[in-house]
């Protein structure tokens, strides 16, 4: 008997070792013939496939003069391509039940599709996706219409307190950097964009060698390879040196801006340029932010602003890591008469956290939630696809998800405090308050 028990134990250890070596999410990675990076996870549980193709072609690649060019290029892809007009593309997608989705953020632009994995449906969906990525027509008449729609939407958005706050905030954080440009462009710049502006942006930014393809679902490795080739075969050839996003200068001094708006609530945003993807401070900041304002009811901001004082429905903070330092932001909306009180509470909460860091108890609770909740980050095809797209675009390690919980566990309270102190100076924060009690002044603080 003892020998058998021992044998079983040895077997269990072997099994554990084998599992440890086996990745949590086996990501297959290769390059297409034309140099596109592919990230693929096979899953046959559901008869469907998700694919996305992204390029470094987001709003950060705009210039001030042609602000909105990147957005309009991405937006126009599906509105006519390779001899098919917009209606034919929409009809053919719908005919096979496929769902086309665009992606556009400060760094990335592209398109993707969700389709059934059965051969006929899948082939038609992939063929359409390849066509719109490689051969968009940027029809002048469609462009004129879309410019009217877009400028109307921009003017509409400019009446909303949350938009006004977000735009003011971005300009304060990035006064001379493309991250400070409005991602969809300004009314004044959008109206001047031409068909050739978009076509040339497409030629120079949607090139095969810079494409990042994420793929998740019910196809074999061979089928995935063929799909990746089909999606990149017709893309423009490389346009020379890769486009880059300039470094982000730190804020020189703090500033507070009050903007009058006749709403019942004041919208408050406060922050500074934060952290870039792949930065060694990322995990301490991410875990620390759970304690400060990322952890919902467990966060200090919610506790101080909502639970203790009933000043707001939501109060939060986040880091948004990008190619360069994306924003660190604290936000809330509060009844106009309470704006000053709420702002004082938020300032003190942020300053205290930066000065002292998290308590041992807070840090432990943050880790428990993030580590225990890790399975929720990869519990659907959609979420896995989004992870693949980020890992690929930002060239993160293929083991990023496997190492995620270890990296979280490793974070110490000292690291959190040090990282926050390196990144955020409470005396150099940009603050904007949009609401009825504003005096429309700007002042240094």
């Amino acid at each position, binding site marked *: 008997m003892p020998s058998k028990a021992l044998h079983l134990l040895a077997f269990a250890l072997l099994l554990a070792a084998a599992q440890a070596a086996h990745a949590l999410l086996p990501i297959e990675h290769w390059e297409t013939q034309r140099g596109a990076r592919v990230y693929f996870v096979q899953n046959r549980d559901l008869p469907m496939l998700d694919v996305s193709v992204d390029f470094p072609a987001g709003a950060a690649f705009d210039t001030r003069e042609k602000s909105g060019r990147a957005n309009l290029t991405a937006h126009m892809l599906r509105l006519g391509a390779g001899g098919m007009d917009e209606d034919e593309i929409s*009809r053919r997608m719908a005919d*096979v039940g496929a*769902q086309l989705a665009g992606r556009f953020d400060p760094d990335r632009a592209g398109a993707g599709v969700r389709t059934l994995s059965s051969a006929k449906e899948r082939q038609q969906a992939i063929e359409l996706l390849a066509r719109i990525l490689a051969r968009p027509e940027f029809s002048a008449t469609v462009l004129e219409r879309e410019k009217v729609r877009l400028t109307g939407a921009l003017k509409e958005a400019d009446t909303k307190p949350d938009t006004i706050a977000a735009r003011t905030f971005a300009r304060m954080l990035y006064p001379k950097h493309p991250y400070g440009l409005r991602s969809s462009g300004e009314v004044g710049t959008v109206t001047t964009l031409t068909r050739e502006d978009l076509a040339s942006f497409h030629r120079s930014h949607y090139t095969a060698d810079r494409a990042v393809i994420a793929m998740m679902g019910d196809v074999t490795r061979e089928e995935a390879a063929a799909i990746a080739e089909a999606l990149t075969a017709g893309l423009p050839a490389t346009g020379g040196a890769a486009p880059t996003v300039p470094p982000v200068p730190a804020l020189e001094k703090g500033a507070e801006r009050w903007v009058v*708006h*006749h*709403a019942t609530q004041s919208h408050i945003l406060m922050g500074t340029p934060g952290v870039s993807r792949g930065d060694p401070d990322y995990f301490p900041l991410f875990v620390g932010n759970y304690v400060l304002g990322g952890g*919902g*009811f*467990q966060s200090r901001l919610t506790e101080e602003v909502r639970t203790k004082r009933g000043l707001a429905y939501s109060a939060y903070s986040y880091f948004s890591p990008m190619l360069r330092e994306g924003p660190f932001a604290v936000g809330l909306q509060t009844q106009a008469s309470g704006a000053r009180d709420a702002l004082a509470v938020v300032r003190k909460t942020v300053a205290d956290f930066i000065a002292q860091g998290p308590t041992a108890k807070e840090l432990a609770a943050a880790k428990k939630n993030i580590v225990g*909740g890790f399975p929720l980050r990869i519990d659907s095809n959609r979420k896995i696809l989004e992870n693949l797209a980020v890992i690929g675009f930002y060239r993160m390690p293929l083991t990023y998800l496997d190492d995620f919980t270890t990296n979280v566990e490793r974070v110490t309270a000292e690291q959190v405090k040090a990282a926050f102190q390196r990144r955020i100076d409470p005396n150099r924060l940009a603050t904007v308050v949009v609401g009825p009690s504003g005096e429309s002044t700007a002042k240094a603080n």
Partner: protein
Amino acid sequence: MRVIVKSDHRAPVVVSMVWYKVGSIDERSGTTGVAHVLEHMLFKGTKAVPSGEFSRIIAEAGGRDNAFTSRDYTGYYQTLHKSQLALVMRLEADRMVNALLAPEEFAKEIKVVMEERRWRTDDRPRSLVYEQLNAAAFRAHPYRNPVIGWMSDLENMRVQDAREFYDAWYAPNNATLVVVGDVTPEEVFKLARQHFGPLPRKTLPLRRITEEPQQLGPQDLTVRAPAELPYVLMNYKAPVLRDPDADWEPYALEMLANVLDGNEAARLNRTLVRTARIASSASAYYDGVARGPGTFSLSGTPTPGKTARELEQALRREVEKLIAEGVTEEELQRVKAQAVASHVYERDSMFYQAQQIGSLTMAGLSHRVIDLFVEKLKAVTAEQVVAVAKKYLVDSGLTVAYLDPQPLSGKKPAGPPPGVRHAQ
């Protein structure tokens, strides 16, 4: 208590939702919004689990939790690792009967809800349009009241109102537990019996819900609020699904909404946005699953330079054209292909599946309707689509609301919300 389990073994995760068949439809004049306020208060402690502890325990178990209140129901959910299911059940069973509803917590939370109302509705012109339209379209039925409640009712609300509502409606026999995830029905039933089994049944109040008298003619209203673009929302009275096997009109109305607006090449976008360029956006919507009366709505934003009334006329012309000329087999096939595909895509989200099951159950329907729906939609004919358009998209059941944009300076938005999600 009814328990519905759907196994989904793709990830070691479980979604657990407790649905109470009580929403703003069950409220009385003077205390509108109480269902939603009570939802907030259910995070404010029991004797065993003090205020704030519920969310803290779920968070430390790696979970996410929240709640939602609608016209027809109130729901509480957690998403977390499957090993934590027993914990969730213990906590939900506890607050089903032991909520403290402390006055000092209420005093703070009612302020939070008022902030929520300002944020959701008072400062959002289109939410105001929706709220005002409902108040006009329903003269007597409680669907006329916003889920979040009228501001004066929130101002006047007392903790006793929440207490009375809780005592009346929170009981296992008014609840449905929906669990989707990496579990077996047997283990869930066992846990449910253990935690909810000992809770006492209650005699529920009579559900005396005023029926909406028949609308006798078209009506319209205007909302003036700070905005740039006008907007029009047209609401037609329509039936809802009551007998999923025998009814056919709700499926035909669903098909109608999709022929008009089910994809980018569908009629409203193709004609009004892309070709005629009278609209910046245009949509059609039908929700055939509800405890109360149904609506079919058309809405849109005119393109700059066009008015809301012009867009309304254009929307009406699309309906008239559909009635006069019918719909093509190609259009029907396209919608059916989309429905078949969507039925597969839905299975990628455990949360969505749980929501579908819960909302059907609350409307008195079986979760089996999820599968039946695709088959029924496939069976809809072109004649049926025209027939329901002719019968329901008519003036006599129409309420139109226009947003009349006002300049930003000086004007204050006038008044108030739709479905309310959430507590956090």
